[in-house]
């Protein structure tokens, strides 16, 4: 009886099996790469702010301590964003006619807060507390990256649960002496693991991994 399909259907059928398997594999890889990419995590993405505030100038070049603006980091879960009065402690005296700083002066005049765009924000179902991390030897730059070298602020970590778990499971990789917590230029020493293990014992770090630690 006459053939229904051309002879090439054989090759097409066999080829399509290989292509289907390859496609499924590629799809998996693509999904993973997209999930890990800055498109999804906003890592290394500088976001539009009302004023182009430079941490590099203020924290790095001028050496202003983190806590001068982020005042509640040692006492509260939220580190705090500075009110306009904090900016005006200096900028009422210097750069008083700068066009770049006009929104700051306008905010001071009108008593309307500057609407900063959150760069490091966790979803609402995660309860993160700054004060305990700072008290136990986790430095600012450990999570927030080389903030004193950022001309514009970007998120340094993915903020994924896996990123948090990386430290919670092995705090000795990241913990630093308490005196160095607010040092933006601290580099971990070559014997970080050894030093870390000793600090974990000394500071009695529990490295909690129970679900209800963060998902209260």
């Amino acid at each position, binding site marked *: 009886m006459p053939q229904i*399909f051309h002879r090439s259907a*054989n090759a097409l*059928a066999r080829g399509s099996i290989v292509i289907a398997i390859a496609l499924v594999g590629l799809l998996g890889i693509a999904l993973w790469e997209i*999930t890990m990419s800055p498109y999804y995590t906003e890592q290394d993405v500088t976001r539009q702010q009302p004023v182009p505030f430079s941490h590099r100038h203020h924290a790095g070049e001028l050496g202003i301590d983190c806590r001068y603006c982020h005042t509640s980091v040692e006492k509260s879960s939220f580190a705090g964003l500075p009110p306009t009065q904090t900016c005006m402690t200096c900028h009422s005296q210097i750069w008083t006619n700068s066009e770049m700083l006009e929104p700051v002066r306008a905010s001071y005049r009108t008593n309307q807060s500057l609407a900063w765009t959150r760069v490091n924000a966790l979803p609402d179902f995660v309860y993160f507390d700054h004060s305990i991390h700072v008290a136990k030897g986790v430095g600012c730059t450990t999570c927030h990256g080389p903030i004193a070298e950022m001309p514009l602020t970007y998120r340094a970590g993915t903020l994924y649960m896996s990123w948090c778990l990386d430290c919670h499971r092995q705090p000795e990789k990241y913990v630093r002496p308490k005196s160095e917590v607010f040092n933006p230029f601290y580099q971990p020493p070559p014997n970080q693991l050894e030093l870390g293990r000793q600090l974990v014992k000394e500071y009695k770090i529990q490295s909690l991994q129970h679900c209800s630690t963060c998902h209260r």
Partner: protein
Amino acid sequence: MASEGSQKHTAVAEPEPIIAPGHTLATVTDKISSIVLTPGITKGWLGGFTIAVMLFLLLNVVMVYLFTFGVGIWGINVPVAWAFAITNFVWWIGIGHAGTLISAFLLLMHQRWRTSINRFAEAMTIFAVMCAGMFPLLHMGRPWLFYYMMPYPNPMWLWPQFRSPLVWDVFAVSTYFTVSLLFWFVGLIPDLATLRDKAKGRISQVVYGMLALGWRGSAVHWSRYEFASLLLAGIATPLVVSVHTVVSFDFTAAIVPGWHSTIFPPYFVAGAIYSGFAMVLTLAIPLRKYYHLEDLVTIRHLDIISKVMLATGMIVAYAYLIEAFMAFYSGSEYEKFMLMNRMTGPYKVVYWGLITCNLIIPQLLWFRKVRRNAAALFAIALVINVGMWLERFVIIAISLHRDFIPGKWGMYYPTRWDWATLAGSFGLFFVLFYLFIRFLPMISMVEVRSLVHQTEEEKLHA
């Protein structure tokens, strides 16, 4: 008088044929393929299909409403947090087990009577597993996160809770579906090739041709086909026992009286085969009548199926009686109360309905006349289907509604959305089944032809 008596008591010399005499290879092929290849649709098929489609549309409405407003549209609450959804899930999965038993287990046991029923029984399994698989997804509070149940690499570095039977369910049901689908499809390939060769229209030729995967009917192909069938049957057979065992673990892993019982795995498996064979009868009896297949699906088939139902029904009856005995023998006041509550509490109508449907009415199957009467069997099969659904409801809802602490006791009342979801699942099942009987050969031409051949060989060499 004496001769009649001796006729009654003499054993039948030859077992009744499982295929009507007079069939040849060609007549079997023609009869079955003509149902598929005859163009157009009959009024009866269209009527049934319309009802199925309407139920399926109801299911779609229910799903939209459910995903919008959440599982509160059902009557579930604390304490009865699982009711119709899980009842339906267990019921549909149980039904599927008969198909696999007929196709796979009886193949390994060389039971030739399975040949004319295994195709639509296996199709019934696949569609039942699809209906069943919907319910765990529907009953989730956040169904859009269903993929959390699968162990995939995720940015939370979390695996599913592998200690939970609910996760084992995911693997059991998906394995079961995959293996059943493969087994069914591999068995279909030569039949699809037959349809490809006999089809007149170009579309039919191309579609059946693509599905037949280039089957030539050569000796090599047949040899591989036989080997693949045996292999897949070997893989599918343990699934008959394991899948429903894992489903029963959903309950046994909990501490609720009425759930935490070691008899559940064999009890559930027997119950699954019981309800599955009842569904096979519910489908086979109208099919053989409407499509004039009495010569292929004979009275002897109905007789054998009834005997299997009776046997598994007795196992289920044993399980009921042992549960009752153990409730008192254990001395546990919670177990004792659980049983008394089932028998005399607010849901006692459901419990006694269950006993009637599953225990009492199927005792009619002891009688040969009943086993060989298609209409009576149809009625009994429907009763058993209902009874098995009631059994799952009794186990789930009645055990939950009154457990350890009286302060937590409550009642469960199904809402119209509960009933609509159940009815809608029938829509999905019957839409698929009607499409199956229209477009695919509902009896395995390959196997029935080999049965004809074997029967002729036996006659020649007798």
